[in-house]
């Protein structure tokens, strides 16, 4: 399985994503420059965290117009798995691949800590290696992670089981609507989440619950062949 790790000016969690899928998981991976428009060689696309374009205007607002994103949108529409974390989630909402938007954290503080989450939907290609309603811990590090969408969209997300991860009850770090930490699109091939599973793949780092997300992707790829 070959993963593309997109790199925008200002991305800084691309290395962690690459390490997670290549060094730890053992799959093929390549960094892909934001100006590249051909992604045919890849089976999955990873959109990293960081501060693409300095978060100028709005987080992810400018990355959405990078040349590579036109291809990412095309590939997503064709069903290629696309995964975005933190700034990646913000870019996916700005690009219209996922509904809603990420706002400034309710308390204004940058939240950087281990965060308890619940895996609400373990039937996606990103979460089939988790138990339903399993509680996991992943690091978060963000100032604009409060998920917002209008009432109609929220009802749809809930009804379609598109909410994949929620912050554990009583532990919402940023004011996200309905404790939403990560969502998938209707077709199930695009996932965006604020926490960082790519920073939770080795026990020496103190977290290992993130590895299974990438293992799920690899397993789904094998199953699909």
């Amino acid at each position: 399985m070959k993963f593309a790790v997109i790199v925008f000016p200002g991305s800084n969690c691309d290395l962690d994503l690459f390490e997670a899928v290549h060094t730890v998981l053992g799959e093929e991976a390549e960094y892909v420059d934001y100006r590249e428009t051909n992604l045919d060689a890849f089976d999955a696309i990873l959109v990293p965290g960081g501060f693409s374009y300095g978060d100028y205007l709005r987080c992810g607002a400018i990355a959405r117009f990078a040349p590579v994103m036109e291809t990412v949108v095309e590939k997503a529409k064709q069903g290629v798995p696309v995964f975005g974390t933190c700034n990646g989630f913000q870019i996916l909402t700005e690009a219209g691949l996922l509904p809603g938007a990420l706002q400034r954290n309710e308390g204004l503080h940058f939240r950087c800590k281990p965060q308890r989450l619940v895996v609400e939907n373990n039937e996606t290609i990103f979460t089939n290696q988790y138990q339903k309603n399993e509680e996991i811990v992943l690091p978060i590090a963000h100032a604009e992670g409060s998920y917002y969408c209008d009432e109609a969209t929220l009802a749809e997300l809930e009804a379609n089981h598109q909410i994949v991860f929620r912050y554990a009850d009583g532990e919402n770090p940023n004011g996200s609507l309905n404790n939403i930490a990560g969502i998938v699109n209707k077709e199930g091939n695009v996932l965006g989440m604020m926490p960082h599973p790519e920073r939770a793949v080795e026990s020496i780092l103190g977290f290992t619950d993130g590895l299974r997300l990438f293992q799920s992707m690899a397993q789904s790829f094998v199953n699909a062949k």
Partner: protein
Amino acid sequence: MYLVKVYVTYKESILDPKGEAVKKAVHQMGYETIESVRIGKYFEIVVNDNDSAKVEAMIDEVSDKLLANVTMETYRYEIEEA
């Protein structure tokens, strides 16, 4: 040549914690009569085109897709000869 002024503000239902922080600071200045502060963005755009209809259509698209995130924000603009 046109000068376009675009104002982008949060929709009323959106929480604005930065505006709240500014309001607190204003209260610390002693001005308790200020009940609400909401922060928006202001853009000044110079356009090299004399077709005002074309310019408006362009600004609408630019505002819709880039200057404002229409999930959370609304925009309006004023056009004047530059």
